[in-house]
């Protein structure tokens, strides 16, 4: 017998929920902001481009220099930035949920330190191979995450033990990075841009590097956010509900590691997005991960697209690193949200 497919209302964010309007509005604002950010980012820069130019390029005019600027320079950079934002914000939101710790971010499972060390080794010791940096950063990130996971495994994963193991591994890798920098201080200058993260000169090649992870991340997130909610109830309740807690947790940590590693490999060590975006989102829409995850992805993209546009135009022609700018602008905004939340 064929079964009628119905949407289970208990699975949907409920319309009777008093926060429904606010959430809906937040989604509209986020989508509009992303669209506006993309358009503005195409328009402004060393060469000013007008809306008519964009229209011309969209309609298939590939002859002028504007086509080259839009299609080969600005568009890939915007897409890479947006995807890195999505990946980092998702990774942060997932880790904060899985580890039940508000300070969790991709750095806490060793991803940042592992990527940093691998990239530094290439940039300092094998500068002629600098094309390999993204790949090695990715491998370093995944290796470090795996190491942290294995160290903290003892008949299961205790979130606190995982966090402490992550901190220890990060400190150890950090020490190696510092040592490298001390002994090769002449080459440090060239690594700074990568270490603070940025999107200068990102091309379609970078887009194709990160896109599979973003796509998989978004799909799994939509399907899996429900499980993250269950994990938030604690291991015992989750087990009582028939969830395979260790498997699920491993799946989420692996997903977060791949998301963060792919972002770091194309963007360098961008902090802030992964830690702050999910918090800002939670302050507005609440802690339901069915909303936190998609909204984090959306606003992670918005944040990076805007910040990167500012970073390359504000002191034109000098570019400032987007990571620095993001913290400059994002931190006060986050504090503003936090103050608002405390008043309630």
């Amino acid at each position, binding site marked *: 017998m064929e079964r009628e497919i119905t949407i289970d209302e208990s699975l949907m964010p*409920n319309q009777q929920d008093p926060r429904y309007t606010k959430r809906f509005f937040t989604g509209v604002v986020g989508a509009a902001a992303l669209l506006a950010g993309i358009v503005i980012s195409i328009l402004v820069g060393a060469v000013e481009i007008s809306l008519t130019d964009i229209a011309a390029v969209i309609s298939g005019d590939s002859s002028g220099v504007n086509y080259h600027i839009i299609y080969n320079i600005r568009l890939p950079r915007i897409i890479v930035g947006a995807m890195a934002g999505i990946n980092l914000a998702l990774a942060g939101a997932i880790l904060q949920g899985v580890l039940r710790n508000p300070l969790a971010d991709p750095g806490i499972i060793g991803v940042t330190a592992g990527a940093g060390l691998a990239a530094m080794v290439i940039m300092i010791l094998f500068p002629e191979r600098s094309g390999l940096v993204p790949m090695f950063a990715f491998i370093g990130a995944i290796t470090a995450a795996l190491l942290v996971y294995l160290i903290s495994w003892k008949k299961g994963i205790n979130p606190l033990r995982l966090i402490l193991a992550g901190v220890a591994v990060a400190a150890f890798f950090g020490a190696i990075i510092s040592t490298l920098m001390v002994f090769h201080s002449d080459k440090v200058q060239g690594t700074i841009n990568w270490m603070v993260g940025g999107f200068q000169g990102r091309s379609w090649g970078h887009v194709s590097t990160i896109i599979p992870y973003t796509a998989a991340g978004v799909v799994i997130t939509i399907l899996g956010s*429900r499980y993250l909610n269950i994990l938030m109830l604690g291991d015992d309740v989750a087990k009582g509900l*028939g969830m395979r807690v260790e498997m699920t947790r491993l799946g989420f940590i692996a997903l977060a590691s791949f998301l963060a590693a792919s972002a770091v490999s194309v963007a360098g060590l961008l902090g802030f997005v992964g830690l702050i975006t999910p918090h800002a989102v939670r302050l507005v829409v609440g*802690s339901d991960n069915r909303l936190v995850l998609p909204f984090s992805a959306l606003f992670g993209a918005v944040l990076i697209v805007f910040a990167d546009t500012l970073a390359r135009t504000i002191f034109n022609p000098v570019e400032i690193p987007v990571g620095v700018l993001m913290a400059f602008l994002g931190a006060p905004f986050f504090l503003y949200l936090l103050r608002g939340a405390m008043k309630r």
Partner: protein
Amino acid sequence: MKTISLESLDLSYGDRLVVKGLDLRFERPEIVSIIGANGSGKSTILKSIGRLLRPRKGVVTLNGKDIHTLPAKTVARAMSILPQSPHAPDDITVKDLVSFGRTPYRNFFGNNGDDDAEIIRWALKETNIEEFAFRPVQTLSGGERQRAWIAMALAQKTGIMLLDEPTTFLDIHHQFEIMELLQRLNEKHNITVIMVIHDLNHAAKFSHRVIAVKQGNIVRDGTPEEVITEATLKEVFGIKAQILSMNGSIVCIPCGVCR
């Protein structure tokens, strides 16, 4: 109902053996209270029944099958377990919390076509918290919050409910509310309630069966009248107590520590 059987169970936390060679059976829809001093292993026993703790030796079976080889979801459809003071995110609504109870019936894509929404409404109604459905759990009083958690367990539609100190931290009014709710669920829906409880009078008044535990061993297992006696209380808790009979149930008046 489904039969639960604990067979020569050794339970340990880390390296410390808490329970050794335990045998127990539950085969009737009854209210069972497990009583015992702090650290006597009563919560450990409850956890092992609820599949939260893997026994070092022996098996816990559900209708003859080892609960650790059965699929987790199958077990979660047969029994629900609430740990002591469970914690939920601050802003989760009662309805969202209760809907977690449907987890064992959902597949990876969420919906299985069953009447989830109907069952969630039923669970809210049975626990009398319909009016709070869209309130954040955190804004409820302790008693209401506990009923929300029980509604979640109820939404699992299991024949067996395991509860670890369901009335701790509640005032006397809300304690009675919870106990009467459990009694109603037992009488109306034939749900077996197995709980760890500290209040001996609640254990006496509301349970069909009381199990007294000391250092991981069962001292007495039987009706409240058989178990809650001066001798057993002395042995299990090391207290002097007087047992009175009142309106068909017994009342225990603790008098002090045995010296």
